[in-house]
């Protein structure tokens, strides 16, 4: 299962890619594989706040609904509007075109508690 080295992870299978005071968030390869065909993504509106460890949206596959948890707090500065018409991008490119939203980080110290790629891989092993 692909776990890119340049990202940090949550125990609920979100990833975060930090770039200065901004960060892009999505769900992992493992998560999309568990969900199956993604058919609907509910995202927050730009300019709203997301809070670390709180839900910020929902991913629905044909068979199930899964909440999305914010890896860090911040203001939403962009959402991936392509997912409105092509939610399957989450399945095909979870770390690329299937990104979900971009935030402006409120407190970069919050990132310290996130899982490293090694820790996340271990967790996936356990769940598999």
């Amino acid at each position, binding site marked *: 299962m692909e776990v890119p080295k340049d990202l940090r992870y949550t125990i609920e299978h979100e990833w975060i890619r930090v770039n200065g005071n901004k960060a892009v968030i999505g769900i992992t390869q493992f998560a999309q594989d568990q969900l*199956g065909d993604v*058919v609907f993504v509910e995202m927050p509106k730009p300019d709203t706040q997301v809070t670390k460890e709180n839900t910020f949206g929902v991913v629905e596959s044909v068979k199930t609904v899964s909440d999305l948890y914010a890896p860090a707090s911040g203001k939403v500065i962009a959402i991936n509007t392509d997912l409105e018409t092509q939610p399957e991008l989450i*399945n095909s490119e979870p770390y690329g075109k299937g990104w979900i939203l971009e935030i402006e980080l409120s407190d970069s110290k919050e990132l310290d508690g996130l899982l490293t790629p090694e820790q996340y891989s271990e967790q996936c092993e356990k769940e598999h």
Partner: protein
Amino acid sequence: MSQETSTALKTTPLYTVHKELGAKLVPFAGWHMPIQYQGIIQEHLCVRNGVGIFDVSHMGEIDIRGKESGKFLQKLVTNDIEKMSDHSILYTVMCYEDGGVVDDLLVHRFSEDHYFLCVNAANCAKDYEWVRKIAQPYDVKVQDISQETAQLAIQGKDAEKLLQKMFDVPLNDLRYYHFKKGKIHKNDCIISRTGYTGEDGFEIYIDSSLAEPVFREILEAGKPFNIQPIGLAARDTLRLEMGYALYGNDITAETSPLEAGLGWVVKLQKEDFIGKESLKNQKEAGLKRKLVGIKLLERGIPRPHYPVFSGDRPVGELTSGTFSPSLNMGIGLCYVSPEHAKVGSRLSVGIRNKQVPAEIVKPPFVVSGVKK
């Protein structure tokens, strides 16, 4: 994404084949079953556009023999057994005295003194007990043959062409809801023109020991038709697009077949059957709720137990719901009060904290391909 242990689960004779084919296996009705192989949407469309094969060996089979078989079944089920001819199949329900549904099932008639029932996996033990209890005063022998019987479903417009290559008797004259005995290669089996997908197709009953070679042979012979193995998840989306009721969701011990829109299998003019009085009274008093199809008019996916609203007033609840791969929209079945059950009624479905506009429709949601 929870982990469930597989220890107490039963496996079908095709368990290792499913693993080899890359299936995701999940606990379902006490069985370790393939929920999907390549992906639900792809599998769904494979059946709608070509042909797919399902392992449904978890389904239960009950054999009924004896000279009072017909008389006994007439008492057991709501539909009319007397109208059946040899090698015909009848869809029916069996009810409790209060009119609640024990199960929905298919009755297959070999002859006037030999039938077999195909029942839902989750209900098999309960059904067997119930059937034996009702059978007591009759001269019949009831036997649970689920363990030694495997069931495969081959569904889709290419199913006949594919199976005819392997089956020793003609299939083109096998009518909907009829079956034949025959051989696939040298293996005895029963083949019926039935299914749970809304496509033309067949269901094969075969001795468990032969399930693997036959499954592999069908996959091989199906290559020119791009056959794929299909999991239970697509089986659910396929049946829901047809509006077929699912026991445990849409029909239960707490629902009546009349409310569920299954009045066509309840023959109140029949002399006697279990639940007749209650169902007759229900019909005379008027139904309190009805099971109807509902489609979302905006994006979203309805799921079982989501509430249905008229304005701000709750008027019912979803019992089945999914994303329809054929229509690319949310569809479901729900119980609503009769005044909201009319086709075209504008209601809404409560999805998390929103009310998504929806409309009552008459299933099937997509055109059926069965050969009636």
